[in-house]
């Protein structure tokens, strides 16, 4: 891992388009400003890890029940739920 030391208001460039600026340091919290193209996803690591884990879990098919049994359980939970017939 590359380790750099920055003071408040100093910045880092990631490539040409991404600027990360240390805005403030308050105790054990660092406030960062991130300038990046809107198309680039910027997420807190723990949120990214959570969504990634959810994606992996959804794909894990080892002992996954059938879609039919899951649908039956969901319908049972919501008897009034309308459905859209496949054409």
């Amino acid at each position: 891992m590359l380790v750099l030391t920055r003071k408040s208001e100093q910045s880092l460039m990631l490539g040409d388009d991404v600027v990360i600026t240390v805005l403030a340091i308050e105790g054990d919290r660092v406030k960062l400003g991130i300038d990046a193209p809107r198309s680039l996803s910027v997420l807190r690591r723990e949120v990214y890890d959570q969504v990634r884990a959810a994606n992996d879990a959804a794909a894990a098919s080892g002992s996954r029940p059938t879609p039919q049994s899951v649908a039956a359980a969901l319908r049972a939970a919501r008897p009034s739920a309308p459905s859209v017939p496949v054409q």
Partner: protein
Amino acid sequence: MSALAEVGSESVDLDQLNDDAVISFADGLVGQPGWRRFVLLSGDPTDVVGVLQSVDDPTLSLMVTSPTLAVPDYRVPLTTTDRTALQLGPDQEPVVLTTVTVHDQTITTNLLGPLLINPRTRVARQLVLTDASYSTTYPIGQLGAED
């Protein structure tokens, strides 16, 4: 053509999407940049559940449902950038699906990271709703409860 996915309808909108047209996630899914090309298959006759089947990896599939089935007021706020990435016109809305996971007997869905699909171009994206406090494991049902 059926109504374009109102975010708020409880259907999985399979009638719009379950043909052979490939759904393309240009950036893949979060943490899985290689998960890009899928077709949406009907998961059950009533279309409460669909299956996103990878066209590149036969062993990769994701069960999906409509998030509004569980949370009727579920909303996905789209930025201009999101709309551009999804190739949505000003009056078009994406189909919104969320992945389904079964752990033990509990069925959960990932409301934090919905999958948005343009029903016309089949361009898709996974968003992360960081401004909302949605769970990735929101319980929506219990297996065996129908017995």
